[in-house]
């Protein structure tokens, strides 16, 4: 197990280097001039511009720039934001903590709702309860998530005035206030995931429900609750777990739409801002960080698999 994790982490190093090359090239391919941007956009003084470029290292050939960046990364230094002057690493972690709080809370609540709901729907297959759950998920799936977010804002923020609509306060600063800022974005994200995951869980359970070992569990006289949780759930969860992995990695990499709707200072927003500002160090750092998030999330999901399927040997 430990060996497996170590090997996987080692294996991810070449992946990240390749990603770094791609990121570097893509960022340089962006139109626009970072030095010009920094100096406010309309400067005709060529020498000031030259000086700025030299200061940023932009006058060096690309390979040299890349190697310099890579060397910095390996020494743990992602550089300094061109726009704000903050260290990039700090900036990313700061923004990521916002995204991670929202996303992890949303995922946890989505799992807590959709697993029982999916199991229940499958258990009551073709009854009214099942139909109700299926119809509800289809309804949610057919609404765009930014629209649902906006409607939540309108209802609970503007009309009822129960919850704040703009801004963000970290729970570590003020817990009570922080929670009120989290409720709407978490609910909005969770609703989308619940819809997808409930359907996956229901489909997975329906397939398992007809297996001999489930009938056999009933034939042992086990109560229905035990049949569902001990025999159906572990076998039905694998497809949902795959989904969770993909969704989790995608959202941690920046729930850009949700962050924009709820004006959260998250990773997605950082990314968008640094693209507009040609903030190369932040952009490169954030993209590389996102790649690392994908690698780590996938590793965690692979480990989680081995708990649900003993046939999956970690090797």
């Amino acid at each position, binding site marked *: 197990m430990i*060996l*497996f994790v170590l*090997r996987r982490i080692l294996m991810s190093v070449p992946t990240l280097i390749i990603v770094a090359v791609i990121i570097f090239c893509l960022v340089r391919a962006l139109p626009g001039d970072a030095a010009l941007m920094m100096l406010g956009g309309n400067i005709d003084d060529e020498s000031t511009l030259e000086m700025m470029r030299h200061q940023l290292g932009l006058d060096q050939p690309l390979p040299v720039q890349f190697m310099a960046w890579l060397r910095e990364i390996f020494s743990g230094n992602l550089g300094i934001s061109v726009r704000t002057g903050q260290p990039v690493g700090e900036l990313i972690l700061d923004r990521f903590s916002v995204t991670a709080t929202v996303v992890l809370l949303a995922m946890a609540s989505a799992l807590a709702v959709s697993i029982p709901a999916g199991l229940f729907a499958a258990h009551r*297959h073709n009854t009214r309860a099942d139909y109700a759950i299926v119809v509800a998920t289809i309804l949610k799936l057919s609404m765009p998530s930014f629209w649902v977010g906006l409607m939540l804002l309108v209802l609970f923020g503007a009309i009822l005035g129960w919850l704040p609509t703009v801004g963000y306060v970290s729970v570590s600063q003020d817990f009570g206030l922080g929670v009120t800022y989290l409720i709407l974005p978490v609910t909005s994200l969770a609703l989308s995931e619940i819809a997808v995951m409930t359907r996956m869980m229901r489909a997975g359970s329906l397939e398992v429900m*007809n*297996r*001999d*070992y489930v*009938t*056999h*569990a*009933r*034939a*042992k*006289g*086990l*109560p229905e609750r*035990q049949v569902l949780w*001990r*025999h159906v759930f*572990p*076998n039905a969860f694998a497809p949902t777990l795959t989904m969770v992995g993909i969704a989790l990695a995608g959202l941690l990499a920046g729930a850009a739409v949700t962050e924009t709707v709820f004006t959260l200072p998250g990773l997605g927003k950082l990314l968008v801002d640094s693209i507009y500002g040609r903030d190369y160090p932040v952009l490169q750092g954030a993209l590389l960080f996102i790649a690392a998030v994908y690698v780590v999330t996938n590793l965690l999901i692979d480990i989680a698999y081995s708990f*649900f*399927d*003993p*046939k999956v040997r970690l*090797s």
Partner: protein
Amino acid sequence: MGNTTTDPREPLLRIDDLEISFGSASVVRGVDLSLNEGEILALVGESGSGKSMIGRSILGLLPTPGRVSRGRIRFAGHEITAPSSPEELRLLRGRSIGLIFQEPLSSLNPTMRIGEQMFEAMRLHTDLSEAQIRDRAIEMLRQVRLDRPETLLNRYPHEFSGGMRQRIMIASVMMLKPRLLIADEPTTALDAVVQREVLDIMEDVARASGTAVILISHDLAVVARYADRIAVMEKGDLVETGATRTVLARPAHDYTRRLLAAAQLGTPSPVSGRPGAALLKVDNLSVDFAEKTFLGLFGKRVHHAVRDVSLTVAPGEFVGLVGESGSGKSTIGRAVCNLTPKAGGTVSFDGRDLDTCGAGEEQRLRRRIRVVFQDPFSSLNPRMRIGRIVREGLRHEPGLSAAERQKAAEDMLEAVGLSRDMAGRFPHALSGGQRQRVAIARALIAKPDLIIADEPVSALDVTIQAQILALLKRLQAEYGFACLFISHDLHIVEQLCARLYVLHKGRLVEEAPTPAIFAAPRHPYTRRLMSASPRLEQGDDGLQLAETELPEIGGAEADYYDATRPEDPYRLIDTGQGHHVALRSEERRAG
């Protein structure tokens, strides 16, 4: 524990006028059955006869939307069909009525340890402590003859073979000492030797705890050995019940007679080849499977699936390749078709070595070899129509128009006993026997010289088995193909094959013309295979169960090569008339 019957004359289980329906269609009609304490009843019928539904209804576990639409089931004072509460039924399940399923591969939960699966019902139904439950489980595993049971509890189902899983199943069900055990085709998925073992164990355990058994099966010959009484189902009706001996000797109903006839399979009529050079010649074939150990850091463990096997098939000859599962018989078939890489040896077809004759030549030769697989449910693409599946066998024949291909496919369907309009259907609309006919049609449409048939009838009901064998024989007479017939059942290969090769753990242990091997099997393994598949025979007083009496052989058992000890010296010696047998010592000769 459990209620006792109030009336001593009341049987343990009584089924009156039972009707089971799915929607408006009834699958079981007017069935009356009763079972006494400790009695073993065999419930026999083809697939779809409703026998499994009766078993399920006794537990109140009919698959939806099935329901008992008439009649009643009484078990030890409980009204199963009209329980006072669902709880009453649930508490009977496991504790008083146990259930064992057909598929050992799917009836254990793959995500739970064996021990946990055995314990959970005990925890529910008894007040024993964890330690006591553990002891009982170990004791039970020992009773089903599993070695070192204490090491098994922490393992997962996929680590066991089918036979072992079914024994674990028996242990976990019988651990609660139920008064009634329903065994639904408990050994159909297993090969003959293992089947015999598992059923013997089940009978022992049931008799030891006085449990009554309903043994559901399609194979009369297999269950006849164990049953006190036999009940025969045909398409939802109970057509005959009676004591085993009486039903076998004097079957009253037509359908029973047909079932019995199928179980006898008839007189063997081996298909001998034409003289001349061998069509297929396999020399010293070896196939290895490598298994990486511990992350591949500490090398590989090599498993020798096939070791130094040589065999020949003459043109037009049926040759049997026999052995239990894991003996390497299917691997040989796959290696001949190049579906599995060889570790050594050569395969020649029609006098040409397939490895050295060049790619174009090899392809032309390989087109003359076709395969029929065991499982007709997975060997036909469910998204293709039957006509297209059969036509596909012709795709290497250039110069045929679409209409000609269509006609050839329909002709072929007719030749295998299906109607021409089947071509437009999808595989799911066909029964197992019909699908296997399609698979045969697909193989034969290109008029191959050799068919490799890998357990072509093992997945089918006995009555259908006989039909498919007869079909193969008829088609052989018409088309003249040779066949390498792979099977675990000696009695099936006896029907058609002129010569037999017996395999054990990748080694050839005996080779002989079929009549010779049946008259005087020499190798102990062959003898074990032979006694494992029971058949019905015509006796003085009607049909009776044949216990194969084997003639004594010369030489001690120790002289024969034992494949469970692979490091022993191995030598195949000729004992005359093409009868070869494997010995372990080089000097001594048996016989």
